[in-house]
């Protein structure tokens, strides 16, 4: 343990932590854009800078280790001046359309501008660059007029999904997040998992599926923690519910809640949820009679299926039946399905979609 002095108060902290971690352990909040617990450090947004007496430069807390005797101020006039200036520089290049932005109310840029009272930018000479939105993919909206270049999306793509679909192209003020040769996402190694959307602190990356003004993150009534039903992996996700309808899926990155996937999802879990409220969705079993389907109860439908199988077994033998199961059910359910085939139906004709 080492002793550090933060805002005039002494704290004992482990010697192998950064200044940011030491602050967070002691409930001292530092603003960050590029920092992410699960990603490699970038140290590039410079929002977490703190002041240490006697040092002419401000220190980026997220990438600087603590040492015994370290003294810092986290909200000194110089620190606040720096943060305000950086915020002014960022909003000068940011398309300010909070009133129609999907991230309104859940945006770090908004939060910090509010915290430091930055209403508008003085650094508007030269206007702002405009990056056209041209990506036709059905899942991820990429509006780089709102991008603050924190590169969390690039690091999430590389480190969580290991797709390396995006990187930074060009340099300086023209730098932009891009696929190789600035092509479309669907022509890149992108698998549309949406981890980039998950980590984006502003409205640059949003879900096209939950867009169209269904309900923004700040509007949802509740977030229901549940397990994805697409496969047996068992990823945890959060259904965003508004007016008793699912209006989006987000993920919980806390491993206490999300032990399997720690917030990471695949394209199906993150974007394939709009069937829930679809009018085409089957909500009751159907039995076909005279070429027409009619609704039935579960009991009636199961009996109907059992009778049908029994009849075939009696007439054609057990091996005329095969059981084919799905990766959408769990291992345990798959086990039960093969047991049903072998013990009840009496056949070894069992197969699974994952084998193909």
């Amino acid at each position, binding site marked *: 343990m080492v002793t550090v002095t933060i805002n005039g108060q002494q704290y004992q902290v482990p010697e192998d932590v950064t200044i940011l971690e030491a602050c967070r352990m002691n409930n001292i909040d530092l603003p960050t*854009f590029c920092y992410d617990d699960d990603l490699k*450090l*970038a*140290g*590039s*947004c*410079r*929002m977490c*800078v703190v002041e240490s007496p006697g040092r*002419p*430069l*401000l220190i*980026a807390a997220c*990438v*600087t*280790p603590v040492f015994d005797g370290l003294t810092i101020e986290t909200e000194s006039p*110089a620190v606040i*001046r*720096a943060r305000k*200036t*950086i915020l002014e*520089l*960022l909003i*000068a*290049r940011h398309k300010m359309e909070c009133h129609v932005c999907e991230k309104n109310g859940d945006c770090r840029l908004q939060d910090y501008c509010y915290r430091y009272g930055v209403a508008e930018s*003085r*650094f508007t*000479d*030269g206007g702002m660059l405009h990056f056209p939105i041209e990506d036709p993919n059905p899942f991820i909206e990429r509006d780089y007029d709102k991008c*603050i*270049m924190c590169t969390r999306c690039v690091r999430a793509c590389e480190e969580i999904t290991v797709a390396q679909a995006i*990187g*930074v192209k*060009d*340099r*300086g*003020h*023209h*730098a932009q997040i891009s696929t190789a040769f600035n092509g479309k996402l669907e022509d890149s190694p992108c698998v549309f998992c949406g981890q980039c959307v998950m980590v984006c602190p502003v409205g640059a990356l949003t879900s096209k599926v939950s867009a169209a003004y269904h309900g923004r993150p700040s509007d949802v009534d509740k977030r229901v923690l549940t397990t994805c039903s697409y496969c047996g992996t068992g990823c945890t996700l959060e259904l965003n519910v508004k007016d008793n309808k699912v209006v989006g899926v987000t993920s919980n990155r806390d491993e206490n809640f999300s032990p399997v996937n720690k917030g990471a999802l695949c394209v199906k879990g993150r974007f394939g949820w709009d069937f829930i409220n679809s009018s085409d969705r089957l909500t009751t079993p159907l039995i076909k009679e005279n070429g027409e389907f009619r609704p039935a109860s579960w009991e009636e439908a199961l009996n109907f299926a059992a009778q049908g199988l029994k009849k075939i077994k009696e007439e054609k033998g057990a091996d005329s039946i095969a059981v084919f199961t799905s990766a959408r059910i769990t291992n345990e359910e798959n086990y039960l399905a093969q047991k049903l085939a072998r013990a009840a139906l009496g056949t070894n004709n069992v197969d699974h979609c994952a084998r193909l």
Partner: protein
Amino acid sequence: MAQEMHIVLKNRDKINPLDINDYLAAGGYQSLVKARGMAQEEVIEEVKNSGLRGRGGAGFNTGLKWSFSYNIKSDEKYVICNADEGEPGTYKDRIIFESDPHIVLEGMAICGHAIGSKKGYIYCRGEYPQVVDLLKKAISQAKEKGVLGDFDIEVRMGAGAYVCGEESALIESILGQRGEPRFKPPFPPVSGLNWKPSIVNNVETFANIPAIIHKGAQWFTGIGAKSYPGTKLLSLTGDVKNRVCIEVPTDTTIRDVIFHFGGGMRNNGQFKAVQIGGTSGGFIPESLLDTPIDFDSMRKIGATLGTGAVFVMDQSRDIVDVVTRISKFFEHESCGKCNPCREGVFRCHEIMKKINKGLATEEDLEKIQLLCLVMEQTCLCGCGQAAPSPILTTLKHFQEEYEQKLLPA
């Protein structure tokens, strides 16, 4: 009267740079033999005691830097020569290579022995293809003669990015990544190329090593300024008569550099300002010309020695116009990694353009000053931290030139 003193350029115009035999005949590679006969700690101690400080701009004690890498146990260590020479107006490294490439190879090999490295890289700027050819020839001659022993040197070429002269961006570039600086710590001597201990030194720094090993630390400390001993190569440009590369003891004054070695002003012009250390150096007015060029004296007057570029301006030069052009350079060269530099240099250039066109007000001056102060304090690397220097120093020393261009209140 002040005299040039040649340590780094001792073989300039005396040997054929493309013939290793000339270098050997002039006593070349004897220091490497001597160093290899010494313990590693002894070599490091000698360099440390000589007081040699990095000649690339940061002025860090070279021997101390080497000791950091030496003290770390690692299967691989690297010696990297920074020959990116991207500061506009700087051409000393090219002169060193074109006069005497082996002196640098020898310095690198001595460093290799001292820290325990078998692999060296020379990162040469892409605009010097002829130097790359020359270096490759020199390396193959040295290998043929066997003078380097088991120390291997490879040349890598830059692709024109200014920021790749920053040591960690240079390392990223060698690795084939985007030329963006890393945050520090860890510093390259601890964790550099391939995250192994790596010494990045400037061409001129390595070129000083053979003489220090040959003649000893004590000899070196007796030359030039006490806190920054030795000589410094300066490349003169602008409105000065002799636009040449000189090597002078570090206690030489700026006035002597310009009016003695530089031969005074061109076309009988009147001196107005000099910018030393490259594009990110501060502007120095006439009143400060008697400052010695050493690192600490320059820092005291709010300027830098930097790479040793000396850009002289006469009274016909419009300071605001010059600074506007400089700010355009930084807008072009910012890598875009950190917020204050990426956005700051762009806005600085825009505000400078506005001032230069006569469309600015007092408020714009305050605005650019605030922006520059925040950039100096918060930018990730030396590029962004130093970019405001020309603006801030001219606002200090040539404020009236800015005020003349403001809109009437």
